[in-house]
């Protein structure tokens, strides 16, 4: 019964796995493995505040293990320290360009972000997790969650601008 209570979170689990592996088939494999792990560690679920965040932490760990084995190039440490500070506010024309950006371009740009930025954006904007939940799932401080979100949004915007320019 307890493990059944995880099934309502299946879409959230799959969405995260799909964005981290960037492949339908691999996402299915990872989710299946994650659910089996979740079932084994079920006794730790009682202490969790949110069942969804608890499951997503397991899905994320399973994804990272899978990536390390199958696509080690994807798991790179983020160079947050030396990364340039966020760009000054963009001028209006670019904002307008961005607003007309198509979903396809956003998907492509998001897929190409380093996984550390991609995952916080997916958890925050698609899953609507709180900063605290993201910090727990990703095992990083809340401050880092916020700076990665800001940096991730910034990188995404730049990547989109580049694509829009190329397309026009």
């Amino acid at each position: 019964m307890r493990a059944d209570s995880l099934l309502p979170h299946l879409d959230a689990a799959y969405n995260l796995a799909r964005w981290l592996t960037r492949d339908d088939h691999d996402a299915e494999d990872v989710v299946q493995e994650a659910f089996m792990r979740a079932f084994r560690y079920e006794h730790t679920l009682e202490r969790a505040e949110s069942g969804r965040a608890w499951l997503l932490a397991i899905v994320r760990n399973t994804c990272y293990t899978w990536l390390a084995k199958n696509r080690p190039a994807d798991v790179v440490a983020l160079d947050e320290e030396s990364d340039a500070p966020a760009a000054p506010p963009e001028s209006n024309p670019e904002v307008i360009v961005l607003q007309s950006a198509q979903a396809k371009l956003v998907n492509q740009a998001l897929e190409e972000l380093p996984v550390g930025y991609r995952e916080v954006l997916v958890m925050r904007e698609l899953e609507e997790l709180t900063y605290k939940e993201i910090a727990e799932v990703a095992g990083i401080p809340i401050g880092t969650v916020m700076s990665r979100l800001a940096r991730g949004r910034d990188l995404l915007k730049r990547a989109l601008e580049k694509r829009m320019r190329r397309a026009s």
Partner: protein
Amino acid sequence: MSEEPLVARDATYYRAPEALRERLRASLAGAAREERRAYGWRLLGIGIAAAAAASITWSVALVTLAPGEPERIGEQVVTAHVRSLMAPNHLVDVTSADSHTVKPWFAGKLPFAPPVADYSQQGFELTGGRLDYIEGQPAAAITYRHRLHTVNLFVWPAKGHADAAPRTQTRQGYGLVGWVKGELRFCAISDMAPTDLVALADLVR
């Protein structure tokens, strides 16, 4: 700083394929069966050991093992909530964001009138209602949406319980808030933190 919802607005939300859901349901059921079998053997072992002990141990054990009321109700509420989310189309029997549609729907189906109101302005959007079953009696299940979260608010007769202020608990990762008011018992449940549900409890009360 305002968030720019580029991802929220334009990125794809990938839903799990139905085949995966079916596969997981089957393998989880299998795993649970294994678990129960192992548990059964353990119980048998404990039973044999205990039978050798004095009978007084038994009565003490039985008293300790009887679950408390909040636990029992919490468990039933979690089960009902999960069931409502698992079966397609089981979440609502009457779909409406209009309290004047949902409230009369319950009339004649229940021996009491649950309070039904829409709290969209405060972030809890009424989505419908259905009949459910808690503590061996018919209950109203009123459903709300809070951002992406589905909330079930169960209401059933309090059977002589005095009014009680909201109390939160977390069970199997779900947040619950229960209270008693005007001879009705209420319990709201969702996958949000229980503290977020207290806002709904305050609105309903």
